[in-house]
């Protein structure tokens, strides 16, 4: 099959923009996507007459849509697949970090999940460490100089007792474990739900 160098250039320019949108994806995967799209454009351009024409190439590229939105669909589909296959928070966070680089929505979801998992870990750690540092681990309430009330969670790694009044005592063990676990589960649900919402929000365009 012959193809004019001008059409070739047009294909290259289009695929270069798609490739740019796939940043963050494993390089092998991205290369394979580009190779498949190139093969599709060549087939599609040749479909009508047998020879790939400049008009055919243009139509094929138009059929694929804008390079940015095409790359966006690939990355979202990949995010979805990863989140579906694994429920591990590590994989989920990795996915969210990538998503954060792609859109503002992803950034906020990532921030929220980071906070959720962080708090969950602290609560559980607090419960676990309480028996080892009974006087310095727990939740402390203190009145600030400005009059505001502040709560602080202390893991008791240093020997000084925090200022203020400890409010939970040994209750930190069941409460910390319960809240920590609850927060952990709900953060995972929230992250998966957000990814699903993001995916559903993308409409299916028709040619």
């Amino acid at each position: 099959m012959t193809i004019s160098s001008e059409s070739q250039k047009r294909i290259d320019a289009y695929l270069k923009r798609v490739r740019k949108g796939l940043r963050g994806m494993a390089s092998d995967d991205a290369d394979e996507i580009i190779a498949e799209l190139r093969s599709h454009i060549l087939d599609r351009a040749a479909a009508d007459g047998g020879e790939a024409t400049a008009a055919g190439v243009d139509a094929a590229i138009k059929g694929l849509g804008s390079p940015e939105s095409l790359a966006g669909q690939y990355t979202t589909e990949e995010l979805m697949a990863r989140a579906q296959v694994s429920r591990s928070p590590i994989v989920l966070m990795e996915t969210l970090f990538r998503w954060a680089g792609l859109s503002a929505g992803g950034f906020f979801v990532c921030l929220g999940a980071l906070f959720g998992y962080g708090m969950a870990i602290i609560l559980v750690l607090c419960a676990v460490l309480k028996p080892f540092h009974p006087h310095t681990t727990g939740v402390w309430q203190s009145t600030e100089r400005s009059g505001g009330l502040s709560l602080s969670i202390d893991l008791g790694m240093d020997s000084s007792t925090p200022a203020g009044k400890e409010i939970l005592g040994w209750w930190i063990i069941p409460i910390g474990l319960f809240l920590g676990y609850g927060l952990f589960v709900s953060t995972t649900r929230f992250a998966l739900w957000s990814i699903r919402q993001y995916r559903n929000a993308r409409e299916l365009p028709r040619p």
Partner: protein
Amino acid sequence: MKPTPNADREPPDKWEVQLRKGCLELAILASLWGGELYGLEILRRLASDSELIVSEGTVYPLLSRLKSLGLVESKWVESDAGHPRKYYLLTPSGRERAIEMAQIWSRFSAGLGRLLVPLGKGTAR
């Protein structure tokens, strides 16, 4: 099935868009039931055997997701056209999933069909 006239020109409503999107995964798995196909063949199969006319920019990313889910696998095959083509084929778990989805679909559409019988009588010409 006969294509509805004007089907391509009417702007699809939101519900229809969601419906099509929801069925696309099953449609793609079903199109691969008879053997391996490359992307453009899948698109043509969808367009000719069903009214699922979908954008090319939707099918390729979806194929890549089905692959990461382990429902299809792919291989590159040299072609007469001078460039290799990426062929997709169902994995055993893809076959299982397709059967499962087809059963759910049949049950669902039969149930909804019964519910819609009175509506059909109302519009019968």
